[in-house]
Each structure stands twice: as structure tokens, then as C-alpha cells.
């Protein structure tokens, strides 16, 4: 409590973010430019949902739950192809400063991006007149939230048994001050980036389902970024397959 007429006794102050441009090929957390963070992938955590997943990219923690297929509202009319709705929400405790309870414009944009990436991979003809809902919650946001949300959504859809053409793996890149392009930026890097790129890929066929580039990219730089991101996505896809296979083997016992 502030003493009358005096300085406040103590105030919790957010520490400023560290300077995160890579120095001599080493990033603020010790990684090399092309290193993605350690990942953790799990499925089947939300027992009420048809399918669910939990994904960690370093300290970024994302949870996804899939519900459906459920009948669509009659106002949406007859459709031979099912609907896939994706909703991404950052928990209010996910960011350094407390976030809003309602979905903000950034979350709506992320929902659109993740929805586009996942919709291309789902065989919507297999559930006509029905809708599948994907609810993604970001529990801790420390960079690459959109990529983690896309990956978690794809894992949850596979866990739910929604027919898919392929899994979807997503990878983010950031260009930092000084021009270095880093893979899988952490929160400090993402806050200080000068340009960003996110790629969502169906790994078996190397088909891109989502691509978002922000900032200035020459076509040469964009090509290099895509190649870098593709490599990151392939590694992620292998890990996703292992996770799904282990979960299926456990369920078989």
C-alpha cells in the first residue's frame, strides 16, 4: 500500500525483454539460427472431446480439442461438404501482461489462419451436413503461437478420427535486426522481429496449406524462408506421426 505522500512500497514491474537479435550465430536462448526448440506432443487429454492434443514448442504451450461431427444449423443451408470451424483463444494468463477474456482481433486473425491451414487437409466430403469444431487454447505464449496452434489442431483432428488427406505441420520464422532469419522464434525474438513468416505444410506430399509472410521479403529471401520452414515442418511431422502411433499402440493394449 502506498504511504501517504511517499513512494509506493513495492511495485511489480515487468522486466524489459532482452535484446534478442542473434550475435555471432547464437540466439538469446543459446540456439543456432536454424534450431527449433524442443517440442512435446501428446494426444487424448480432454476425455469429453472427440479428440484432443497438447503441444509445447519450448515454453509455448497450446492445447486443442475437437468436437463433432455435429449437425449444422439449418440457417447455414445444405452442404455436400462438412464445415470445419477453428477457434483460437489465448488464455488470459498466457501473455506477459494479462490478456482479455473475449477473443481479440489478433486471435480472430489467428483463428482464420489456422482454419485455412487445417481445412485444406480435412476430407470434408466425409461428413456432409455436419460440422467439426476445433477449439485451441494457448496456455502460454512464448513465440510461434500460430504454428503451435496449427500443429495442435491437426494432431487433435487425427486423434478424433476426422478423415484427413494428411497431417499438417507448421513452422514459424522471424527476421531479426541485422537481417538474420531464425527458425521458431521465442517470445523475445517475436516481439523484436522485423519480418515474419509462417508455413503450414502437409508433409507427405509437400503441399503447403497455409503461408503467411509479414514485413518486407524479396522473392529470393521468401524462397529461402520457405525452404527453411519446410525443413522445420518435416521434422515436426515425423514427431507428430510418432506421437499418434504410440498413442494408438497404447490404446490397443
Amino acid at each position, binding site marked *: 500500500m502506498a504511504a501517504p505522500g511517499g513512494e509506493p512500497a513495492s511495485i511489480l514491474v515487468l522486466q524489459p525483454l532482452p535484446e534478442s537479435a542473434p550475435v555471432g550465430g547464437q540466439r538469446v536462448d543459446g540456439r543456432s539460427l536454424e534450431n527449433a526448440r524442443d517440442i512435446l506432443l501428446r494426444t487424448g487429454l480432454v476425455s469429453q472431446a472427440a479428440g484432443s492434443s497438447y503441444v509445447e514448442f519450448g515454453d509455448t504451450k497450446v492445447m486443442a480439442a475437437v468436437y463433432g461431427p455435429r*449437425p449444422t444449423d439449418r440457417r447455414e443451408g445444405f452442404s455436400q461438404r462438412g464445415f470445419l470451424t477453428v477457434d483460437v483463444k489465448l488464455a488470459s494468463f498466457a501473455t506477459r501482461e494479462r490478456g482479455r477474456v473475449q477473443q481479440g482481433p489478433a486471435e480472430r486473425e489467428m483463428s482464420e489462419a489456422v482454419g485455412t491451414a487445417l481445412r485444406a487437409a480435412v476430407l470434408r466430403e466425409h461428413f456432409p451436413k455436419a460440422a467439426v469444431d476445433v477449439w485451441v487454447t494457448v496456455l502460454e505464449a512464448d513465440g510461434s503461437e500460430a504454428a503451435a496452434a496449427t500443429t495442435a489442431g491437426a494432431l487433435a483432428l*487425427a486423434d478424433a478420427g476426422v*478423415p*484427413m488427406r494428411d497431417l499438417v505441420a507448421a513452422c514459424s520464422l522471424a527476421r531479426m535486426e541485422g537481417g538474420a532469419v531464425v527458425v521458431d522464434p521465442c517470445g523475445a525474438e517475436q516481439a523484436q522481429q522485423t519480418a515474419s513468416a509462417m508455413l503450414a505444410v502437409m508433409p507427405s506430399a509437400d503441399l503447403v496449406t497455409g503461408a503467411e509472410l509479414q514485413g518486407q521479403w524479396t522473392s529470393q529471401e521468401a524462397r529461402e524462408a520457405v525452404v527453411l520452414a519446410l525443413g522445420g515442418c518435416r521434422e515436426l511431422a515425423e514427431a507428430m506421426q510418432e506421437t499418434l502411433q504410440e498413442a494408438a*499402440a497404447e*490404446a490397443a493394449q
Partner: protein
Amino acid sequence: MAVPVVCPGDILCAASEAIAGSGAHVEGEAIRASLVGSVRRVPADAAAPDQRPTIEVIRRGLQQGTPKPGDIITAKVVRINPRLAAVDVLCVGDIPLDTTFTGTIRRQDVRATEVDSVAIADSFRPGDLVRAEVLSLGDSRSYFLGTARNELGVVYARHSTSGQAMVAHSWQEMRCPETQAVEKRKVAKIAS
């Protein structure tokens, strides 16, 4: 022996070697898996024109599906009027659904013969459990269902006054076991 588990997108075989069954789809020149599960090859019938085996991916656990034309479903009658019976679809085949889909049994789809003389109130009543076939996806509001086969129709109904579960008496009548009172229904012939 552990059966290898495939993930969506995994190539199962060339499209020319097999037919894609449930859980698999054709993508270009290859048949790929659509689900996480184990692969099963079903050889073609000796009489089938296409002798390629069918390749399927079987997923463990309940596969929540949506009603497709040709499926046999179990539904509960919610509401009737002279033209149709509105039902809630509860199960597709043997699998109970998490959410109910709306279905309609129209007067002309209740039975195969003498469709003009069908009275819905003599075929179904609210609360009956009915086994029906999905005729089509219908419109945005409901699936179109039909009971025009011997084995389709009411499988469980309670008598309107005594409340007892009735026993099938003929293809058109069900009888209350206590009061012996008879009510008209389009009764399903359940193979014994």
C-alpha cells in the same frame, strides 16, 4: 503380433493395386490413409467385376460418423403429422451418436406397397424407437429416412394407455402383454 499403425497421409499402395475403402482415399497415383489405425486388406468377392482387394484403415475406438445414404439407423419418433414422422437419429448402425441428427420419414417412404393409403398415426407414434434406412441427405433441416422393407419399422413402442412395452403381433399391429389391447404400427420384422 503388433500391427503397424498408419497415420493420415501415409501411402498404403498404388491406386491401381486396390480399391480405397473406409479410412483410405485416393490421392493422385497412390492410396493414402485418412485415419490413424491399422491397415486391413479385404479380398474382392469372387463374383465382383473388379478383382482388386479393398484396402481399409481400421481405427480403434468408436468412430463417430454421420448418417450416409444406405445406412441403417435407429431413431426415436419425436413428432408426427399426417404427412410425416419427425425423428431424432440416435445410432448409426451399431454406433450410438454423441449428438442427435434430425430425420424425417415421409408418408410415401413408410412402406413399399399402397403408399397412398398410409396413415402416419397408424404407423408411428411419438416415443417409438424405429429402425430405418437413410434414403438421402435430405435438406438442410433433416435427413430423409425410409422404412419400406420388412426388417425396418418400429422396434419398440409403449402402449398409449397402459404404458407397457408392446409385443409385435403382425407387421401392422402390436399388442400390450397385460391388457391384450392392440395398436397399429408399421412393425419391423426382427429376424429370430
